[in-house]
């Protein structure tokens, strides 16, 4: 009997890589932008589904914000993710409220991981907006501070992407990282980048920091 046949392995849960997609579903996203975004979500799923390791490790949640903030998709592994087709748009852009929900979602997910003995990579929040928050300056400022605090304490990585007439200045004040202006409506390229990034993170060996892929789909800053 060889060692290969006699030694049994411990069963440990796969480490998780949580990614929150925080999406602007205000009226101005109607038409071409939301159609391209929906297609992008499918691209994201398809790209990651090709990698058996990433499929089990990457977990995605979707939060949308317009005049309401909605948890459109609670965390689910890529294996089980059925990309929704977003069609309901609302007036207003409650971006700060959306950010707050995303931050809380990440916080709670980590607590769940810990209480279940699941190891995890640093979570990402990926925000896409085509406008500006319609909340008070004070609320927006506070949301920005929460993001900054979370980043400073290395609790997560926050990325902001501006589309079309997005207020890049505002995004710069909220996000610690330089926001990226999407080239046209090339959500597909953006989601290919995001899936490749998630794939690299979820494959990274213990001790290895993962440098970000170059951003070909937008202008940084």
């Amino acid at each position, binding site marked *: 009997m060889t060692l290969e046949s006699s030694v049994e*392995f411990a069963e*440990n849960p796969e480490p998780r890589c949580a990614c929150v997609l925080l999406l602007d579903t205000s009226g101005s996203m109607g038409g071409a932008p939301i159609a391209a975004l929906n297609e992008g979500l499918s691209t994201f799923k398809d790209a990651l589904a090709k990698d058996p390791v990433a499929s089990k490790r990457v977990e995605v949640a979707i939060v949308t914000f317009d005049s309401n903030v909605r948890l459109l998709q609670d965390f689910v592994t890529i294996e089980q993710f059925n990309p929704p087709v977003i069609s309901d748009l609302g007036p207003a852009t409650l971006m700060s409220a959306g950010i707050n929900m995303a931050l809380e979602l990440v916080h709670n997910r980590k607590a769940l991981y810990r209480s279940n*003995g699941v*190891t995890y990579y*640093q979570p990402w929040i990926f925000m896409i907006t085509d406008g500006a928050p319609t909340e008070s300056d004070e609320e927006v400022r506070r949301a920005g501070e929460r993001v900054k605090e979370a980043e400073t304490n290395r609790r997560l990585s926050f990325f902001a992407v501006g589309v079309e007439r997005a207020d890049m200045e505002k995004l710069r004040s909220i996000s610690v990282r330089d926001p990226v202006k999407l080239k046209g409506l090339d959500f597909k390229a953006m989601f290919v980048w995001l899936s490749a990034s998630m794939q690299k993170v979820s494959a990274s*060996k213990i001790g290895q920091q993962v440098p970000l892929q170059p951003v070909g789909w937008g202008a940084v800053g």
Partner: protein
Amino acid sequence: MEDQDSREEKIQPALREIRSNKSWRVVGVSAPGTSHTRLGIPCQDSNLSEILPSGSLVAVVADGAGSAAHAELGSQLAVRTVINEARRSEVQLASLTAEEPCKALLKEWAMAACKAIAGEASKLDVTPRELATTLIILTATPRFIGAAQIGDGATVFRNSRGEIRTLTTPKLEEYINESTFLSSPGVEESIQLEVWEGEVSQVAALSDGLQMLALQFPGPVAHKPFFEPLFDFVAQTNSTEDLEQAVQAFLDSQRIRDRSDDDLTLLLAHRM
């Protein structure tokens, strides 16, 4: 000034070390990960062991950081330095009777490895981070076993009552893709030091490539069905060649490679 080659040769330990005298039988194998082979990167794990004249065993495992330019150099230098330190302090080791002095000695050896890394980095005109490596030191005297660990991996033992326990384990950072290395700031305060007094039959040391298969998380605890066959094997196999071949084949097996693409090191020792 010695040239690059002779210096490399001096700090090039064998990837497989087999020692056997009447006190301990040891086998240690380091095998490159499939991800390394695919990218043309050499094995960055190292292991080295020695049975000192007094009959004490010293075994060392090091795992070079994938992101370090001179990772394999760092891990080789670390294991070689510790064995040299152990040889120098052999008398001290043999005369230890208490836990604290044992921990202090292990810590000294670990810090000597840190210093060696820093020194070599300086010679190469790079930061110590470019030689970053984890370090596991395992020592066994007739009275006790002791381990020092910086970073991930684990040491496990089976005592004379047949119980299998961990000695040192990975202290996972919050994020699974982060680790502590010899080159990390504040490393001195984060060295894990453990001593277990009593009769030990077998010991094992492994680098992080095997830890998810060998340990049950959370805890973690040693997975008994992983270690039992291995400890039985090293206890029952006399031929050093058989030992080495079997462990190599085990590490190269499909079952293992399907679950881990990392460098793998497994070191086993049996008290005779």
